[in-house]
C-alpha cells in the first residue's frame, strides 16, 4: 500500500473515531440545529445561487442526524480534498502527509466549536468550511492542470529526469510519518471540545426530546459531587429535575445534587440558557407560549431549525392551533429524518386518544395548572422565570404542588415553601417526605417562622441528623474553616440534604 493511501485510510479511521464516537452527540445536535426543506422557497430563502454553498451544506447537515452517516460524509469530502491537494501539487511519498493538513484543520474546526453550536452565524454551518475548501481545491486542481498542460509540460518531464537518486528516503518517510501523525493526533485532541458537561448537556437534551427520562437521569449522577469532578451546569440540573418530576421523583431533587454552575467556554462566548434550551424547558413545564416564543425568537436570530420547528408544532398542538401545527408539519414532512415524527403528530391531531396516551402528554399534563392567563416576561432569563413562576404558585392540584414546593426550596424561598406546605398538609395527613421534613425543620428554627412548623410530626432520624449537621457545622466553623472547606468536609455526609444545599450552595448564578 502506498503512503498516499495509508494516510487517508488512517485519517478516515481517526476522523470517524473523533466524529462518530467522541462527538456523535455534537453531530446530532448540529443536525437538529439546522434545516433543509426541498423546493424553491428554501433555496430562495438561503439566497438563491449566491447561497448555493449554504444550501448544499444544509442538505448535507441533515445526514448528521445519524452521526455515523454524517461522519462518513465528512470523510468522503475530506478524502476528496486530500486527493485534490495531492494531485494539485503532485505530492509523493512523505510529502503527501501535507495534504492531510486541510482535512485535519476542518476536523478541528468541527469538533472545537463547543457552545457555538447554539449560535450559528449561518445555515449549514457544519459543512460550509468543508465545501468552500473543496471548491478551492477543485479550482486549484484545475489551475494546476492547465499550468502543467500549457506551461510546464516540457520542463516537468526534464526536471523529473534530473532528480537525484534518493538516499535513506524510506527511513526519512517513516520518521516524517510518525512525527506528523503524532502532531495531528495531538493537535486534534487539543482542539476537541471535550468538556464533560457540554457533552452531558447535549445527550440530556436529546433524551428529554425523546422522553427518555431514565437516560436523562443516567447522564446526571455520573457527575458525583466530589471535588475532582466538575459540577453540573444549571442546564443539567434543570433537565435532571424535569426528569425527576416526570418520573414522580421530584422530592429527590436535592438528594441527587442540585448545585449547578456556569458552563465552561474556551472563548469570549456568553452562553444563555434561553438560546440553549429555553423552548424545551418551558415546554416540559407546560408553559407553551413561552416555549413557542423562544423557539420563534431563536429561529429568527439564528435561523430556523428542525428542533425549533418541532417545538413550534408541539406548542401549537397543545394550544389547539391546528392550522399552525399543520403549517410546520408540512415542512417537517418533507425532511428525510423527521417525517415519521411529523406523521406521528398528524396522527395525534386526528386522534386525541393517541396524543393522550403518549409519554410526552402524560409527563406534561400534571404540570398544567389551573392558573389564569396573565401577562409576564422573562427578561431572557428562562431559569429564573420558571423558578419564580412555580415558587409563587399556590395550588392544591396534587400533581403540581410537589413541583411547586420543590421549586420553592430550589430558590430558597422559605416563605413560599411554608405557605405551600400548609396547603399541602391540608390534604396529605400522612407521612411527610424527608425533603419537606428537612426543609420544615430548618425553617422552623428561623426567626419569625410559623409555630405550626414546630408541631409537625418529624421523624426522629431526621431530627437527629439535623442536630448532627448543626453540631458538625459549628465544630468546623470553630476550627476556623472557610465556608468552602466546610462545604467540602460536610458534603460526603450531608450533601444529599436540603440543609447542605441551603447553607453551602452560595454561588447560584442564572445565565
Amino acid at each position, binding site marked *: 500500500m502506498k503512503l498516499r493511501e495509508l494516510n487517508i485510510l488512517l485519517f478516515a479511521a481517526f476522523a470517524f473515531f473523533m466524529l462518530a464516537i467522541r462527538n456523535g452527540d455534537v453531530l446530532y445536535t448540529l443536525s437538529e440545529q439546522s434545516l433543509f426543506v426541498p423546493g424553491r422557497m428554501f433555496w430562495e430563502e438561503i439566497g438563491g445561487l449566491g447561497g448555493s454553498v449554504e444550501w448544499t451544506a444544509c442538505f448535507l447537515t441533515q445526514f448528521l442526524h445519524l452521526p455515523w452517516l454524517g461522519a462518513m460524509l465528512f470523510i468522503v469530502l475530506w478524502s476528496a480534498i486530500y486527493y485534490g491537494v495531492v494531485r494539485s501539487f503532485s505530492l509523493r511519498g512523505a510529502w503527501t502527509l501535507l495534504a492531510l493538513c486541510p482535512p485535519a484543520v476542518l476536523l478541528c474546526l468541527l469538533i472545537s466549536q463547543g457552545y457555538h453550536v447554539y449560535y450559528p452565524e449561518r445555515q449549514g454551518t457544519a459543512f460550509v468550511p468543508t465545501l468552500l475548501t473543496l471548491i478551492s481545491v477543485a479550482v486549484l486542481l484545475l489551475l494546476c492542470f492547465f499550468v502543467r498542460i500549457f506551461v510546464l509540460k516540457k520542463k516537468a518531464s526534464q526536471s523529473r529526469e534530473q532528480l537525484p537518486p534518493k538516499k535513506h528516503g524510506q527511513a526519512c518517510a517513516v520518521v516524517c510519518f510518525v512525527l506528523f501523525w503524532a502532531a495531528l493526533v495531538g493537535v486534534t485532541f487539543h482542539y476537541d471540545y471535550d468538556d464533560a458537561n457540554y457533552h452531558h448537556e447535549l445527550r440530556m437534551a436529546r433524551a428529554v426530546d425523546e422522553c427518555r427520562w431514565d437516560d436523562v437521569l443516567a447522564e446526571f449522577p455520573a457527575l458525583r459531587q466530589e471535588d475532582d469532578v466538575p459540577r453540573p451546569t444549571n442546564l443539567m440540573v434543570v433537565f435532571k429535575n424535569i426528569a425527576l418530576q416526570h418520573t414522580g421523583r421530584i422530592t429527590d431533587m436535592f438528594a441527587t445534587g442540585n448545585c449547578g454552575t456556569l458552563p465552561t467556554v474556551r472563548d469570549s462566548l456568553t452562553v444563555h440558557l434561553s438560546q440553549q434550551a429555553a423552548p424545551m424547558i418551558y415546554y416540559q413545564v407546560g408553559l407553551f407560549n*413561552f416555549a413557542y416564543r423562544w423557539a420563534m425568537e431563536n429561529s429568527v436570530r439564528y435561523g430556523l431549525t428542525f428542533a425549533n420547528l418541532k417545538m413550534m408544532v408541539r406548542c401549537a398542538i397543545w394550544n389547539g392551533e391546528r392550522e399552525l401545527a399543520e403549517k410546520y408539519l408540512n415542512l417537517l414532512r418533507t425532511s428525510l429524518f423527521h417525517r415519521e415524527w411529523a406523521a406521528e403528530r398528524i396522527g395525534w391531531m386526528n386522534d386525541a386518544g393517541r396524543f393522550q396516551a403518549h409519554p410526552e402528554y402524560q409527563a406534561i399534563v400534571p404540570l398544567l395548572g389551573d392558573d389564569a392567563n396573565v401577562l409576564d416576561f*422573562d427578561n431572557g432569563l428562562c431559569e429564573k422565570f420558571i423558578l419564580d413562576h412555580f415558587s409563587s404558585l399556590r395550588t392544591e392540584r396534587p400533581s403540581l404542588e410537589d413541583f411547586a414546593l420543590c421549586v420553592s426550596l430550589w430558590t430558597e424561598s422559605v416563605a413560599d415553601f411554608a405557605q405551600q406546605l400548609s396547603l399541602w398538609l391540608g390534604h396529605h395527613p400522612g407521612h411527610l417526605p424527608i425533603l419537606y421534613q428537612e426543609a420544615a425543620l430548618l425553617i422552623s428554627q428561623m426567626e419569625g417562622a410559623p409555630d405550626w412548623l414546630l408541631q409537625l410530626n418529624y421523624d426522629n432520624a431526621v431530627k437527629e441528623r439535623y442536630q448532627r449537621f448543626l453540631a458538625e457545622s459549628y465544630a468546623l466553623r470553630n476550627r476556623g474553616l472557610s465556608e468552602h472547606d466546610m462545604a467540602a468536609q460536610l458534603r460526603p455526609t450531608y450533601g444529599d440534604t436540603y440543609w447542605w444545599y441551603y447553607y453551602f450552595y452560595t454561588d447560584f448564578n442564572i445565565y
Partner: protein
Amino acid sequence: MNRTVIVLAVLMVLVSCTRHGEVPAQFERSESLPSLFPDYVDVTIPVNLCPLNFTLNEAGQQVVARFTAGDVCYTYGEGRNVLIDADEWAELTQAACGGDIGVEVFVEKAGVWTAYKPFSIHVAADPIDPYISYRLIQPSYVAYHELSIRQRNLTTFDEDVIYTNRDVMTPTQGQCINCHSYQNYGTQNMLFHMRQHLGGTMMVVDGRPVKVDLKTDSTLSAGVYPAWHPQLPLVAFSTNLTGQVFHTRSTEKVEVQDTGSDLILYDIVKNTVEHIRHTSDEMEIFPCWAPDGRTLYYCSARSVVTSPDSIDEQTIDRYEQIKYDIFAMDFDTAGHTFSQPRLLYSASAKGRSATLPRLSPDGRYLVFAEADHGCFHVWHHDADIFLIDLQSDSLCAQPLTDINSERSESYPSFSSNGRWLMVASRRDDNNYTRPYIAHFDPVSGTCSKPFELPQLHPSFYTFCLRSFNRPEFMTEPVGVTQEEFLNAVKQHPQKVNFKPTHP
C-alpha cells in the same frame, strides 16, 4: 447544428409552457364546492389582477379546472395545482370584465373523477392599483434578523425589494425597519424607519432619499406611526414608549403596549417637529389624514396608570382596560394649526378598542380595526374591520362582515380609487399575516368576499414563514433604488428641530 437548436427550442417550449389539463370524459357529479387553497370560490377580483393559481385543499391526485368567460375557455391542471398562463388569464378577465368567469373543477381520487359544483370568479371593471408594498417579517416578538420592505406588482407576480437590512446588519449590530408610508399613494414622497444600527427615518422627498433623526429632547421618542398629509409637505407621527409582555396561556401570545404616547407634526420644509397632542393622561396613536387634508383622525386611550410608580406594572396588570377611541381634529392648512379634538367614535363605551383608522379616498368612509382592548390588533384574535359612514348622522360603526373572519383582521387600507379594501389577516393559521383584498361598494359601504394576494405557486403561503406587515397600495413603484437607499442609510441623519407649540 440547426437540428440541435430546433430540438432544444422545442424542449424549452415544452418545459416552459402551461399544462392545459384535459377535462375527463367520465366523471361523477358532486353538489359541494371544491376546497381550494387559496380559496378563490366566489371572490370578486379586479380586471387587471394576475392569475389566480390554486391548489387542492383536499385529498386527490389530480385536478383539472375549466375557466369560461364568454367565448373564451381554457383548462388547466398540473398534478394537484392549477397554474394559469398569464396571457390567457388576461383574455379571460377581459372577456369577463363586469361579469363572471365560470370555473368547473374536476378532481381525480383513486382513479375516479369528480366534478364539483361550478362556481364563479366575479371580475369587477374597477381596476386595482398596480402595486402594493409590505414588510416581510417573521412573526417574532423581540428578536429580528433579516427584514425587507418589498413591492409587489399586482398585475404580475413580480416582487422587488425596496429596502432590506441585510447589507447593514453585522453579527453584533442589528437594524429593524418598519412603518413604510406614502404620500397619497405615490412614491415620490415616502418614508420608512430604521431602528438601532444606523437608525433614523428615511424620508424620500421629491424622489430624493434623506435620512432624518426625528427624536428631540422634548418628544417621547422618534416618530413612530406615520401619516403623510395628502397634499402638504407634512407628516403626522405618533411618538410612543412601547413595550412587549407575553401571555402565559392565551394563544394571542403577546401584548404590545404603550406606557405613553403623543402626536407630533413634522414639517419637511422647515425641518421642525412640534406637538400635536402632548398629554400625560391620554395615549394618542395612529394618526390618519382625511383625503382633503383638513382633518386629522387618530386614536387615543386613557392611561390606566394611577400613580407615577411602577408604570409598566400597572399597564401590564390593567392591559384589558386599555381601550382606544377615535378622535378627529380640524386642521388649518394655511396656518398649520389644529382645533381641539372631538370624539368621533367611542369604542370604549362598548367595552372595545378601535385602532388604525383609514379614510376612503372620497372621504366618506372611515374604516378601522376593533378588538376587545389594546392597540396592536394584529395579535388579537377578535380584531375585526369596522366601518363608519361619515355622511350619516349616527356615525354608527358597522362590522365589515364579509371581509372579517374569526381571526385577526387589522391594518385596513383603501386603493386609490376607493374600490378595493386590503386588510392584514391571520385567518390562514392564526399567526402569519397575509394580505386579503376585497371589492368595496362605495354606495352601500359593503365588501365582497376577499381573496388572498395571489402567488405564482399556490403552495407559497404553506411554506412562507413570514408575515406580510402593513400592506399598502401604491400607484407606482418606488423609484429610489436599493443602492441609493443604502447610501442614504449610511449618512449621518439630519437632526430635526423642536418647535414649541404656542398655546
